Structure formats: structure tokens, C-alpha cells
């Protein structure tokens, strides 16, 4: 009975929307941690490499965390694909000849969610290939040998093409989260006239800080050079 209820919940429109919201918010939380870590690039090579070393020294726990993050990402991605296909079908066989936004509802951000999401998917794959699974340099900080992630990152951003692509992806991340962050609260039923206007503002602020923060660091890294 219990498993039946849960599986039914996970297949219903609202249950899946709750899962989209929860996984989306989890990814939003991850981005905060990631951005905070990236700012260590500006502190210096040792600070950044030590941060990386600390993470790696978590050992098997890190794999558990990474697997969890990967699972959250895959759930978000899988549901997004399924929902987008379903929603397109639900729109019906005949498209409107004329459909105008009222300006009080749909926004550019909300309409482009599947597209910005797709850019982010491509970005994440390339991002992991270029950096996490990228070149391996060794360095020594305080007598400990560790991976020189600072060098990998700074070398990546010497290419102007990489900076432009990275910044473009971060604009997409900002657009995606500007709608997604607030929308997650609505999906979870946390829409209250007293708090929701504030949540919407926080959503925009979050998008600007995250998108702008990552893009700023990439431009800073390019200007600084290796």
C-alpha cells in the first residue's frame, strides 16, 4: 500500500513537480557552495588548491556526495525531458496562429526553461571534461603534494572563446534559476501573499549573484592570465 502510494505520487503531475522543485533547490544550494569555492581563485593558488585537496581528502565520502549530486541532477533532467514532452503534447495538435503574452504571466525566463536547461546540460558535460577530468598538474603546498587545479582553471580561461562560452552558459544559468528558484516554492505550496513577493525578489537576486559571480570570475581569470 505504502509503495503503491509513493509510486503513484511520483508519477502524478503534482508529485513530479514537487520532485522538480526539490531537486532544483538542491542544485541551487550546490551552486552557492561551488561559487564560494571559486572565489578562492581570487585569494590565491594555494588557497584554491588546498580547498580542492580538502575536498579530495574526504575520500569515499566525496564519492557518495558526488553520486547523490549526480542522482539529483539526473532526476531533475529526466523529469524535465518527460514534462516538456508531455506539456508540448497537452498544448494540442493545432498551434495558435496568434498567441500574445499578456505581460502579466509568462516571462522570457519561464518560456525558455527547456532551452536554458539544455545549454546547462551541454555546459556541465563540457565543464566536467575540461576541468574535473581535465589536465593533471601537480603542485606542492605546505609540503603536501596535490593537484594544481588553480593552473587547470586559469589555463582554461586564457582562451577568450572559453570565457565567452562560459559566460553565456552562466547567463543561461541566471535565466534558468531566476524562474526556477521562486517557482520551486510555488510548486511546494509555499506561496503566501506575505512571503511570495519577497521570494520572487530573492529569486532574481540569487540569479544575478550566481550567474554574475561565476561569469565575473571567468573574466577576472582571463584578464589575470596564468
Amino acid at each position, binding site marked *: 500500500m505504502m509503495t503503491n502510494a509513493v509510486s503513484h505520487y511520483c508519477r502524478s503531475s503534482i508529485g513530479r513537480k514537487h520532485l522538480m522543485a526539490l531537486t532544483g533547490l538542491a542544485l541551487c544550494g550546490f551552486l552557492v557552495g561551488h561559487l564560494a569555492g571559486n572565489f578562492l581563485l581570487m585569494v590565491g593558488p594555494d588557497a584554491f588548491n588546498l580547498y580542492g585537496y580538502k575536498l579530495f581528502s574526504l575520500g569515499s565520502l566525496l564519492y557518495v556526495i558526488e553520486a547523490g549530486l549526480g542522482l539529483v541532477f539526473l532526476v531533475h533532467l529526466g523529469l524535465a525531458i518527460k514534462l516538456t514532452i508531455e506539456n508540448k503534447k*497537452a498544448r494540442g495538435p493545432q498551434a495558435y496562429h496568434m498567441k500574445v503574452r499578456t505581460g502579466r504571466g509568462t516571462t522570457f525566463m519561464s518560456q525558455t526553461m527547456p532551452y536554458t536547461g539544455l545549454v546547462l546540460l551541454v555546459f556541465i558535460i563540457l565543464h566536467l571534461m575540461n576541468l574535473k577530468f581535465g589536465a593533471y598538474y601537480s603542485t606542492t603546498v605546505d609540503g603536501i603534494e596535490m593537484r594544481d587545479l588553480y593552473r587547470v582553471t586559469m589555463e582554461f580561461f586564457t582562451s577568450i572563446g572559453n570565457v565567452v562560452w562560459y559566460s553565456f552558459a552562466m547567463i543561461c544559468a541566471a535565466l534558468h534559476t531566476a524562474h526556477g528558484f521562486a517557482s520551486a516554492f510555488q510548486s511546494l505550496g509555499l506561496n503566501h501573499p506575505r512571503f511570495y513577493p519577497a521570494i520572487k525578489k530573492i529569486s532574481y537576486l540569487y540569479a544575478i549573484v550566481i550567474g554574475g559571480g561565476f561569469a565575473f570570475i571567468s573574466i577576472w581569470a582571463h584578464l589575470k592570465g596564468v
Partner: protein
Amino acid sequence: MASGNMTLNLKIWRQKHGEAQGKLVDYKVNNVLPEMSFLEMIDVLNEQLVSKGEDAIAFDHDCREGICGMCSMMIDGKAHGGFKNTTTCQVHMRLYKDGDTIVVEPFRAQAFPVVKDLTVDRSALDGIMAAGGYTSANTGNAQDANSILIPKPIADEAMDAAACIGCGACVASCPNGSAMLFMGAKVSQLALLPQGKPEAPKRALNMVMTHDHLGFGNCTTHAECEATCPKGISIEHIARMNREYLKAAFTYFEKKRDE
């Protein structure tokens, strides 16, 4: 603001029946008065068509005072014309100028098949209603009005949700063809009131399940429904339904009993 007789150019969706191929057809309608409602303007056009021996344009309408929810058309790409808190029958021609071109299409969605021209079959909304949009308690005669006390803000909130006339503008304008606002309004209204509370969990579960089966889409919080709802129903009611559904999905349990 226009005055005197107007001549309008209309592009209206004509489709003989559900399976037929439809298309936009150009019409010129004369003698439109600014005092006319949008539906009266189509009446005038239909009289012109009938006098020429052509088939009149089929469209849904009933009360023509904004309370029945029958009139349903996309006017210039917006449900009910996109005017705030206004149904098509309450759109007046003074909002248009002489010589304007207006595009009129039926409400579209997978769950709203076209019957003819601008008439669509919205019985899928009835299907959602039949799955739980009611209270089944046998209440007998009308009780004293004050025997069940309901705080004024709660009563007001329930009334806001109950304002839904079931026109389907939310579905028609939703980029996902979802009926969440329609369903949310009913789930919310009944969950707020003591009469609706006993069946609230079952209602939420059954209505959502039926909604999904009928081919409506999923909500992605565009809020275009709220923007085009002629009764100004807020997506806060969708949020309340989301809460009700969450609660119901994890707590509602009906024990099998022998008859």
C-alpha cells in the same frame, strides 16, 4: 474610444467539424456599434453571413453577463481578449477602432477538441469536477447560517476561489495546456471550508489523477492562467492544492473493509 458605426476586419477560425482541416477566414463586418459586446459583433457578422446564404460562425455563449463561463475565444492571441477580469461577452467594441483587424481563434488544448469553428468541447473540465469537485455529505435542510463559524478571511479566500466560472481560459492560455488553476480553485475552495474538509485528501488525490489522465499538461508556474483568468483567480490556489496533494499523498489511507 470609437464612436459611430465601425467597420472591422476579422480573421476567424473556421472548421466544419472536429476532424476537418480548419483555417483562418477573412471577414469584413459593417455597422459595428461601440456599445456592442464582442459576441453581439459576431451576431451582426453572422446575420450578414446568413443573409448571403453562408454558414454562420459557431461559437459558445449563454448568459452574456460574464458569469456562465460559456464564451470562449482567443481574441488577438489572448484568452477573452486579455483584458483584466473580463470575459469575451463583456469585451465591448468601444475598445477597438474603426478599421481594426482582429484575429479570433478557439480555445486550444489537447483536452479541448474543436467541435466546430470557435466551439470547443470543454467536458474534460467536467471530468475533473466529477472526480471530487463536490461535497457528498447529506446535509438535510438548510441550517442556521451561523451554526458553522468560518472566519471572514477564510470565507473570503474560499469565495475568491469559488468565483471560477469554468471557462477554460487558464487551459487555453497555459503554454503547457494545464488545468491546474481550474482544479486548484476547486480543491482550494473546498479545502478551506469545514464542509469540504472531510473529503479534502481524497478529493485532491482523485482530481489530480483525473486531470493527468484527461491529457492536461503540467504546471511550470508561468502564471499566464492567473493573468488571463476573467475572475482574477490567483495561483496561490494552485499552491494550496500542491500542499493538499502532498499532505494527502503521504497521509491519506483508506482501510479496506468487508461489506
